[in-house]
């Protein structure tokens, strides 16, 4: 298996006036192509920070980050934009759909960025929203909105999909449905997923689990037999 994402001794320090907040202290991780990785850790442990750096919307203070053989930690602003555009799909902690655009238009906004996007309707069909394509975000439930966000990430055909608490704002049943969609895409299309959560139960469905605490990776576990989303309960 090939490595798709690698962190080498990555540090992130936020300067808050005189106080330094250290969000990441020497993180080393690697994610392989086609893996479904879950990052677990308590609130404030640095998960979102790590994900933002992986996705090229934030930069490490120190250390190196590689996407395949590309060192993204040394890219400039416009190169990072191209990196995000062509390789990364984001699913944010808050749904972050554009409220004035319909579900389909939200997905199109992303599709238009790449040369060979997937068919927008097909992607909406995959996440089970074929019939809601022309609805505005405010007309949809939280789970439906989150699925639109997943479709928006998928439509670009990204190499890696980064999800920040994708089920955090969803009820149990809806959350499981969203996870099912992700897992299917991961298996059928061999897309790599990096999913951040503080919900330990979700870790059971991962190929690999990375544990965070105080800005450090404290443990990495490989799951020999990952559970199906339907088997989870919280």
């Amino acid at each position, binding site marked *: 298996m090939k490595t798709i994402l690698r962190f080498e001794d990555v540090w992130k320090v936020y300067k808050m006036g005189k106080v330094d907040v250290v969000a990441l202290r020497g993180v080393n991780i690697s994610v392989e192509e086609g893996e479904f990785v879950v990052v677990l850790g308590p609130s404030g442990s640095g998960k979102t920070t790590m994900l*933002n750096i992986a996705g090229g919307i934030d930069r490490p203070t120190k250390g190196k980050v590689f996407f395949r053989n590309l060192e993204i930690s040394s890219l400039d602003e416009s190169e990072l934009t191209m990196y*995000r555009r062509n390789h990364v799909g984001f699913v*944010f902690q808050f749904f972050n759909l554009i*409220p004035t655009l319909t579900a389909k238009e939200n997905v199109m906004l992303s599709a*238009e960025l790449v040369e060979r996007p997937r068919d927008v309707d097909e992607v909406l069909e995959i996440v089970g929203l074929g019939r809601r394509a022309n609805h505005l975000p405010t007309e949809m439930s939280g789970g439906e909105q989150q699925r639109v966000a997943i479709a928006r990430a998928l439509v670009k055909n990204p190499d890696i999909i980064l999800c920040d608490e994708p089920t955090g704002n969803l009820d149990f049943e809806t959350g499981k449905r969203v996870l099912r969609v992700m897992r299917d895409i991961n298996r059928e299309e061999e897309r790599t997923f990096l999913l951040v959560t503080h919900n330990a139960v979700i870790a059971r469905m991962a190929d690999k689990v990375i544990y965070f605490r105080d800005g450090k990776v404290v443990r990495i576990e490989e799951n020999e037999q990952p559970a199906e989303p339907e088997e989870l309960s919280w």
Partner: protein
Amino acid sequence: MKTLFVKAVRDFKAQKWQFLAVTFLVFLGVALFSGLYSSYLNIEATYKKFYHETNFEDLGIEFNPAPKELVKKVKAISGVKAVVGRLTAYATMDVEGRGVQLKLVSIPDENSKVNSVYLVEGVYPQRNEVLILKKFADLNRISAGETIHIEVNGKSYALRVSGTAYSPEYVLIAERTNVLISPKDYGILFVPYNVMEEITGMKGKITELHVSIYDKDFADEILNRVKGIFQPYGLKNFYKQEEQPGYKLLKLDLQGFEHIAFMFPSLLLIIAAFAVYILLSRMVMEQIGIIAVIRALGYSKYSIILHYLMHSLIIAVIGTTAGVFAGHYISAGMTSAYIDVLNLPYYVTGIYPGILAISIAAGFVTPLAAGIFTAKRAAEIEPAIAMRGYIIAYRAINIEFLAKFSILTRVAVKNVFRNPKRTLYTLLGIAMGVVLIATSLAFIDSINEMFYVQFDKIQTFDYKVECSDVSAVKRLPDVREAYPIVETWIRFERSGISKSSVLVGLPGQDLYSIYDLHGKRHFPPPEGMIIPQYIAENLSISDGEVVKAFTDVGIVKFRAYSLPQPLMPVCYANLEELKKAGFKPNEVIVKGGRESDLKKLGRVVSLKKLEETTREMMGLMYSFFAFSVLFGASLAFAEIFNTTTINILERRREIATLRMLGYTVREIAASLYIETFLLGLIGLVMGFPMAVLTLKGFEIMYRSEMFRMPFVMYPSTYAITAAVILLTLAVSLLPAIKYIARMEIEKVTKETG
């Protein structure tokens, strides 16, 4: 990119009233500029064409009666193209029981090459026939073929009207001592020379001469030679084309129009730029989270800039396109309305590519320039930070002194200070509203002030009679006061520049007073004379300096004192001083008395009638100002409404939280009212000085040599403006409060951003 365009259109729709309001401003700016400026150019082209067609004179000279044969001598001067010598006289006539003034002018040959008469109806006059100025004829319902009865120096003449005509000299009728002439009360008759000889009793004589020349560069030289020829008879007045009274008045009037055509739309576009800036800044502030997402998806900074400029572009395209079309109609309407008050037989219209280009450029640059700042700011947003949800860095403040007020008052006051930028936008919006309403109202104040200054302060007499016998006036029934005055022309010349004005000689009395711009009364100096500020400045005359001037009684010398005067500035001197210099009183000002009695002594000007005429003539201006008051008020309303509603809507999540915490709608509303009125008061305090400055700007731009409008703002204007603003603020809160009352708390918190 396509979907981002869809988003821009949706953004527009989501705040359509706000966007339409700013688009309307751009539209108005473009429409008024292209419309008014094109009509200015149309009018200029029209009078140039007319002057050319009718061989408008290059030089004119007036003198005491001289032999007609001298015309040949002038014709012989090299460079002279055509000459006409003529006689003039003043007459009166009764039209439907109303006395009107007439000026009789001997008509040049039919194929004369100077000041040709432009025949509209009928034929050239013969024997006892006359041509009559078309507009005057229409207004008084006199038509060709009719016989009119006129009176000159007590003698009556019957003349047949052979037709109606226009003349380049009388596009606007102006006399040196009177520029406010109503076209209905003052007519021009073009009379064959031999009839004029008979009427004036000056056989074989002429009193004025009009010349056209081949090359304008030689105007001074030729004028000097002409002056030389008539010097022995006594010169009364002379001028080059640009000093011809009718032409000069027309030019000044057009200049004022040009200023308005430029300044008024500019003001609108400046306000539009502010409004666009405020609208877009607020939108970007609201959409920070969205921008972060778009950037995270892989859109570049550049696409963000383009996206937010797209909003400006939509405003520009709609506003400019509609503006240019409307401008076309405004131009046509304005041109014909303007020509309507001029004595011109036709008008030309054109499409001016330069004006079109400027209009379109202004229509695009205004919103785009205002938008580029916000678009750039939007592009600089750091997605990683914005994504965390906290967008606006609120300022923590601590106002100890508020401790004794209720919690909601404290919240209200804190809100004002908490987000300085938002507060500043709101304040600017309110101040702009204050400027619009206050200056519009001040226009009306200023017109009233003008009438007050002219007819309640400067001239408080009832009649002015052309008559030198004051005791004859005093003997008439009901005459309470009567004083002799001198009213004549005067002309200053210095190092090639010459300026003419009116000289008024006043005895000690209170019916005709001198005021300066600040309303302070002055008296003619015991020796010397008060001269208008513009003359002192143009000819660099310092106070107390001895200057020479040309007058009816020849060259006089006196000490000059400059005074900035409101309305029409003139020269003032002590009557006794003028008498010593050889002037004779030629008019009597009268309080009381009856017009019918006074008429027997000479030409009468009734001040009451003059005031009526002036008001009538200002009708067009009045409606323009009334329009601008309405417009200003509605604009201010829209502006403030906009600002206030956005101010509340922007905070809907915060307000939803307050509602969830258990505050009642009534409590939140009270807090909003306190906050809004607090802002309103600060906005008023900011707005009034801005309004005064704007007015000052108008004062400077309206100022001309012949007229200076006293721009004032009455206390009532302050009061009305404040009331309108506060009321508008109160009303603008209603939809927001209704919104809060009906607010579905969960839907608001679900929204992203």
